[in-house]
């Protein structure tokens, strides 16, 4: 199981498509930086099929005023949770 990390918004960049294409069936995706916009209810549809494997970084949501706006299916983690995710995954792959 790998951890993929995405820092761009699906509303602005097509790179999320590359991340999705490269993800194995057990892999997880963590949204950071502008990527956390993907946790908004209107944008989370781009990540259909990742139920239970989609995470977003709390600090980046909070800085943007998005913390209370996330779709419930997205698991919000803080930076310690980010470290947890990297421990649990065999390796990480970043998409930017």
């Amino acid at each position, binding site marked *: 199981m790998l951890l993929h990390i995405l820092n761009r918004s699906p509303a602005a960049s097509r790179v999320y498509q590359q991340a999705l294409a490269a993800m194995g069936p057990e892999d997880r995706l963590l949204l950071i930086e502008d990527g956390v916009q993907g946790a908004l209810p209107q944008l989370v549809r781009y990540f259909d099929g990742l139920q239970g494997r989609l995470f977003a970084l709390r600090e980046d949501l909070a*800085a*943007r005023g998005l913390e209370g706006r996330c779709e419930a299916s997205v698991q919000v983690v803080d930076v310690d949770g980010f470290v947890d995710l990297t421990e649990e995954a065999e390796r990480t792959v970043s998409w930017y």
Partner: protein
Amino acid sequence: MTEPTPSDLLVILRHGPHGTNWLREGLDAALVAAAFGRRVSLLFMGEGVTALLRGQQAGPLGQKGTSATLEMLEMYDIETLLVEEAALERFGLTEADLMLPVRRLSAEAISRQPGAHRLVLTF
């Protein structure tokens, strides 16, 4: 719909806060122009509409962000805040989610903006 008097400068802001420095450096250009007595309009497009969200905070390392700068716009007489309506919809936002009053622009109205200003800067 009556158009306000054309401004000298249209600054197009297409990036959200924190992720990059584009928003800050675009706002800096707008503030400087206004301080020098130019009439400035801001147009928030795409991801740029998230710059206006209520409830933004400093970054986890203490990065200031840009919302304090936005709150100073009125002091600089920058009152024309144009927002791409389609972008608000894409992000599921309404005017109540925004920290400042804005004028929503249809696609057709946006296409008239660059021609109505003497100078257009995109950030």
